[in-house]
């Protein structure tokens, strides 16, 4: 029998953590783009777009991410797409992230005083110009901290991709635990690695919070 040293365990986990990071980045960037589109649709469209996006957000916020992953895994197969665990995890996490970011950002836009819209409208700026030059710069200040904070949720969310067979940090942890018979050590290391990934992001979010919202 081969003996696994602690270093062997950690090295293999670190290799798997690359995929956690990659999946998080894809979900965050993709979710950010889709979320921005949803936000603009909600702001510029009429009642209907507002309702539709609201429903979309509630759908993703009111159901477990695990179910969303399963649905993407089996749903993409139904419409005849190639379903690697990688694709379906990326799709599900992107949609999930977009719903949350669209909602966070909507709150930030709503926090910009109504008068700013009216003033810029009376300067004959078009809707696009109002958004670009007046509203978004102010909303972005408010949005930075919660957006960074949400990145932690995305990183933690990628752990669920292990359930549909995507080999990232959690899945690798399970596999290594099964071969080494050291589940305590392995899962402690897995948790620690997630902590190392997430804690700096949490701290950054707290910093930004303080920077933009004065003392507290």
């Amino acid at each position, binding site marked *: 029998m081969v003996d696994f040293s602690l270093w062997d365990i950690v090295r293999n986990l670190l290799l798997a953590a690359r995929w956690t990071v990659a999946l998080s980045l894809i979900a965050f960037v993709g979710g950010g783009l889709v979320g921005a589109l949803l936000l603009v649709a909600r702001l510029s469209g009429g009642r209907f777009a507002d309702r539709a996006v609201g429903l979309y957000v509630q759908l993703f916020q009111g159901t477990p991410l695990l179910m969303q992953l399963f649905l993407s895994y089996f749903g993409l197969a139904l419409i005849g797409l190639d379903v690697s665990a990688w694709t379906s995890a990326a799709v599900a996490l992107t949609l999930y992230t977009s719903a949350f970011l669209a909602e966070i950002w909507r709150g930030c836009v709503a926090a910009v005083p109504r008068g700013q819209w009216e003033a810029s409208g009376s300067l004959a700026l078009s809707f696009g110009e109002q958004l670009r030059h007046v509203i978004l710069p102010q909303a972005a200040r408010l949005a930075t901290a919660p957006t960074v904070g949400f990145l932690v949720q995305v990183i933690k969310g990628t752990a669920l991709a292990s*359930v549909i067979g995507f080999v990232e940090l959690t899945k690798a942890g399970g596999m290594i635990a099964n071969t080494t018979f*050291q589940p*305590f050590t392995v899962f402690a290391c897995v948790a620690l690695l*997630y902590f190392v990934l997430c804690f700096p992001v949490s701290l950054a979010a707290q910093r930004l919070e303080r920077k933009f919202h004065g003392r507290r």
Partner: protein
Amino acid sequence: MRIDFDFMAVLSQWPLLATGVLWTLALTAVATVAGMAVGIACAWARASGPGWLRWPAGAYVELVRNTPFIVQLFFIFFGLPAAGVKLSPELASFIAMVLNLGAYATEIVRAGIQATPRGQIEAAVSLALSRVQVFTRVVLPPALQRVWPAMVSQIVIVMLGSAVCSQISVQELSYAANLIQSRNFRAFESFIVATAVYLLLSIAVRRLLHWAGPRFLFGR
């Protein structure tokens, strides 16, 4: 290509789904009650407890909030037996959920406590209330009232997170969905139905908590 859906094949297994819903609600109820108790205790420790308690409470909160729930669950269920603590899947899930909600509740309650005006505490102290009385009668109820919407959201998030407990074979809702699809191979339909039920549950639980909070927890 034609896609045929067969929802009846899933719905005819409703007793499994019903058991799943009951387990999901049971997990949520225990997590809510015990998790909030943990949260209130730790919030007190962090906001006004003795110095030696502040650091461990803070470490607990940060550790839980910066690791995924599924890893916490696996650590408790697969990891702890190696250290000599053997748990049933149900007990492991309860512990994981309570610890998870406890950490988030700590931060939520603490935010409410910190918003308490200084003068209220001074007034209570000058009325010769003890430290415990000041906390339970003067500080805590309005603090909970202030942060109740955030607390309700977090409880719903924890309920949705309980779907992961199927991975250690607790028979909650997503376990039922998995079992049904392994019997009739209607995977997409099973998960659609389970997802819809989760959506209904989250709306119902949200309503219930918003109704119950002001009646039984704070205010009168």
